[in-house]
């Protein structure tokens, strides 16, 4: 009796907890690799980059375009997206979405309604990267063909991962990360920017794939700054790097300084530690940024003797100055130009002392621009890579 009851309970539970599913054959699916959402005066414009598997793999690959772009407009995103079926013969599936591009106009008007549309859909995986298209239409960004990666979305996806690590002026924002930045008090989001460089006349033709120098490329540009869910402007490259330093992404960055006696030193950063703390001075909140950076010398263009410790110390001091400058610059831009707390200083105060935050929360917008930030950077040069001194020394002699 008891056993039968348990077994039937098990069956009922398992039937009731199936989740969402539906069978569809692969040759009835259109796999969406990139989704673009923009807005014109009244309507939403949805552009979809759909894979054309037969052209990517299989027997007659390469004879046609590897992707197809569909676009439709509607008064809501959903409506536009459903209208795509007037052109597309297959069921759109989003579970392999790699890139989501927002139009600049839409971003400036606010992303919140769109985010709901995306996150409410059950079949979307949360590992795609968000971009804002700078000075260009979303449909164009999605339609540029790329030679190195057959799928343009994958090209963009892979290159933002590499650019984040080695170039440093961009960041990888996924949908959950964006939402978490949006809902965290005292923190504003940033989103990677993307633009088209070159001649877009043939960017959506396979001709674009046949030249050594591509006529048109999709290029990642520095970060877009948001205030709440609205895009307010763009950081420059240096400020974007500063943002990444403060948020602890500085590993693998290259820091270039000019020595007082002339000549450049390039340092590759091996590890960074960032300590953000909130403090109070004269009844005013302030933020302390303490950074510990370890790096190795990656190249010098002068004959300075690196075997002498005082020279290394001097380089360390110069590096500290330079990085402090970068951080200060980024903070200045965020405070004075955009008044957007992208570093999450408010969040730091909130976490350190929520009572203080309670009193600041409502007029944080007025406080943030004049928030005092103490920056302290400690750089340690731990090596000089494969060489000691520059060969310049030998040449001069």
């Amino acid at each position, binding site marked *: 009796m008891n056993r039968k009851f348990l077994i039937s309970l098990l069956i009922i539970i*398992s039937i009731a907890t*199936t*989740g969402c*599913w*539906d*069978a*569809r*054959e*692969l*040759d009835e*699916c259109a*796999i969406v*690799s990139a989704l673009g959402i923009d807005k014109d005066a009244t309507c939403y414009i949805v552009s979809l980059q759909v*894979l054309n*598997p*037969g052209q*990517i*793999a*299989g*027997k007659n*690959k390469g004879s046609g375009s590897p992707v197809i772009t569909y676009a439709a407009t509607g008064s809501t995103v959903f409506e536009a997206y459903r209208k795509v079926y007037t052109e597309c013969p297959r069921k759109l*599936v989003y*579970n*392999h979405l*790699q890139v989501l591009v927002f139009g600049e106009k839409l971003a400036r008007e606010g992303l919140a309604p769109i985010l709901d549309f995306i996150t409410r859909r059950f*079949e979307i*995986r949360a590992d795609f990267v968000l971009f804002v298209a700078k000075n260009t239409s979303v449909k164009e960004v999605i339609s540029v063909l790329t030679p190195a990666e057959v*799928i343009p979305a*994958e090209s963009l996806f892979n290159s933002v991962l590499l650019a984040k690590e080695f170039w440093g002026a961009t960041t990888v924002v996924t949908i959950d990360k964006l939402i978490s930045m949006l809902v965290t008090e005292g923190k504003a989001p940033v989103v990677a920017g993307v633009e088209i460089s070159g001649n877009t006349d043939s960017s959506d033709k396979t001709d674009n794939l046949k030249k050594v120098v591509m006529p048109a490329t999709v290029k990642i540009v520095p970060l877009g700054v948001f205030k709440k869910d609205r895009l307010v402007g763009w950081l420059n490259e240096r400020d974007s790097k500063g943002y990444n330093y403060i948020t602890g992404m500085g590993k693998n960055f290259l820091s270039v300084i000019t020595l007082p006696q002339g000549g450049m030193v390039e340092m590759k950063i091996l590890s960074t530690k960032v300590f953000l703390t909130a403090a109070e001075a004269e009844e005013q909140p302030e933020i302390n940024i303490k950074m510990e950076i370890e790096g190795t010398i990656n190249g010098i263009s002068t004959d300075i003797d690196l075997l002498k410790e005082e020279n290394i110390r001097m380089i360390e001091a110069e590096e500290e100055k330079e990085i402090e400058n970068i951080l200060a610059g980024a903070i200045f831009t965020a405070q004075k130009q955009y008044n957007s707390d992208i570093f999450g200083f408010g969040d730091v105060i909130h976490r350190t002392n929520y009572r203080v935050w309670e009193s600041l929360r409502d007029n944080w917008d007025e406080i943030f621009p004049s928030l005092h930030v103490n920056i302290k950077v400690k750089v340690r040069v731990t090596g000089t890579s494969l060489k000691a001194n520059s060969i310049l020394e030998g040449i001069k002699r």
Partner: protein
Amino acid sequence: MDLHIKLIANIEQVKQIADKNSDWVIRSFICGKNRSISMAVAYIQGLADKNYIQQMINDLTEDLEQYDASNKLLANQEVFEYIQNLHLSGSNFTEVTDFDKLCQQLLSGDTIIMLDGLSKSLALSSGGSEGRSISSPSSQGVLRGPQEGFVEKLATNKTLIRKIIKDSRLQIENKVIGRVTKTSVAVVYVKGICDGSLVKKVNLRLERIAIDGILESGNIEELIQDRAFSIFPTVLNTERPDTVAAELLNGRIAILVDGTPFVLIVPAVFVQFFQASEDYYNNYIISSLIRVLRYTAFLLTLFVPALYIALTTFHNEMIPTVLLINIAAQAEGTPFPTFIEALLLEAIFEIFREASIRMPKAIGSAISMVGGLVMGQAAVQAGIVSEGMLIVVGLTAMSSFILPHYNMSFAVRILRFVFMVLAASFGLFGIFIGLMGMLFHLCSLRSLGVPYMEPLSPRVTKTQRDAILRLPLNREEAE
């Protein structure tokens, strides 16, 4: 019916039983110094060794003549006792007093010696019927280990086991099963190692068998199983004497059946079907890895087609993008849904497999060529099936051959289709429900009262060393 006193009457009776059988031979002769002893021998041509009988009769008459001369024996009883105790002292015989027993002995290859004036006769084991010589087992070959396999003759098979276990505790109980075939069956176990109640249980089940014919050990397997409807085998069969010996030493019981080289071993649990005797002859690390490989292959052959169907039609978010594109590109040209495609290819494969067993050996190469061409090349080029599906079915097929006991792979063959149907209708959810059902069933199975999933569930720590892995033999215990 008991034997008569008169030899003539007995001979008549035997002839009457023989009826129209031309291969029943009954010869009467007179011996002794005064030609005073009349005797008869009866045997069946082909079953009994003719040379042996000839030799036996020669010796007997000669001996009796000499003995008669020196001892003046007259009474038939004395002759009988002489034959029984002195002349045949080196042979295996039984005393027979009735015709039923007599016939049975005759039919199992014995030679009957009858004497005038006595209502009993001697059945001399003279089984010399033609049989296959010992060769290496065909279904369970090994690279390392004894190459001897069982043969069809029960006596030889018993010898093969005795040759390995030289201990008086090794018990071989004989039985005759089958109302018409009267097949000899031997229950073998090691007293003291094997649980006595288990032996009783086996004997009880064997005695309960009421059937006309036992043609192969498979008949017995089916009749002594705990549950007849399970597709999982609960009785192990082997052609290898070393496997039998090893299982006997583990306290199991072997059932030998005359006329087949396949020996049954009970009780059999799930993990046994993944063990080969070679595991114990090779380095334990390698053996353990190979066992893991077998379990992996078991899971592969069971689930790969089902998973392929489930992932491509229900959960394509679980497939890496690049792979999905590849699969999708292949699916572009194929006309059938994935499930039908899988079913089609699996069915073709099963047909080839079955055909290759039934086909005469000479045509085997033609079959494999046609199979390779049809399945491999033509089907893909014609766009009927996709390459991915071909890989899946190929992998499944190869994996199913890795199991050392092929009756487990029968079970898997059937279940694979069940899982495919479940996957096609409910996706991964269906597979998991099926898996749960399968596990429930496996855990509820018993082989002669022993839980089928032992030692995994219920957990028996002592025998865990040799369940999934093959850990090294215990040195201290060995000393």
